């Protein structure tokens, strides 16, 4: 059973943060920002587990894929750092979620949509539903951080062509 978000957020692991800062060579944020990214990873994993649990208990529900959107690349990097400590990661998943959370996310809905409607439409549905779900669970500030502000931490290889929009767009 998935534990309450507050308990998941209380989990700390200095080794994951150290590994993240070593491995993510383009990261220019502060230690406090890295701590916040780790906190957001725990939020993301909690949401992933929560939706998976709902999917298993209510297979008739139409639930979104909880995966990494383009602006959330830095959360994915933190996830990589965590997964490398296999013992910590397996125990964390087991203790807080009662299930192992795979990377990449299986995204069964995206794959079905990809086959039936093509990549562009599948991506559109995935992102739209993910944004709505994150807003519903975590609210406005976290939604803006995940889907807009975190673009600034994307790797140099990643496209970040348009970070700011106009109010009248």
């Amino acid at each position, binding site marked *: 059973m998935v534990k309450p978000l507050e308990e998941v957020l209380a989990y700390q692991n200095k080794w994951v943060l150290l590994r993240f800062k070593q491995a993510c060579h383009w990261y220019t944020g502060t230690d406090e920002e890295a701590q916040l990214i780790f906190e957001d990873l725990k939020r993301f994993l909690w949401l992933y587990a929560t939706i998976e649990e709902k999917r298993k208990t209510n297979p008739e529900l139409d639930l979104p894929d909880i*995966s990494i959107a*383009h602006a959330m690349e830095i959360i994915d990097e933190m996830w990589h750092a965590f997964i490398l400590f296999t013992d910590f990661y397996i125990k964390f998943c087991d203790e807080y979620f009662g299930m192992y959370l795979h990377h990449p996310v299986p*995204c069964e809905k995206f*794959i079905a949509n990809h086959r039936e409607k093509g990549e562009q439409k599948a*991506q*559109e549905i995935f992102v739209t539903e993910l944004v709505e779900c994150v807003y519903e669970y975590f609210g406005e500030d976290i939604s*803006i951080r995940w889907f*807009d502000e975190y673009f600034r931490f994307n790797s140099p290889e*990643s496209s970040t062509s348009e970070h700011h929009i*106009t109010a009248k767009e």
Partner: protein
Amino acid sequence: MKKLNLKEAKKQITKTQLLKKLAKKNLKGGTRGGCPPPFDD
């Protein structure tokens, strides 16, 4: 036209508009870091 970041823009737009803008920005860049393409059977 003056550019605003989303924290400034959100004061002037509805929740529906905000969600639409956030989704639109994340359509770019393909699926890097996101959902994988379907694996071939």
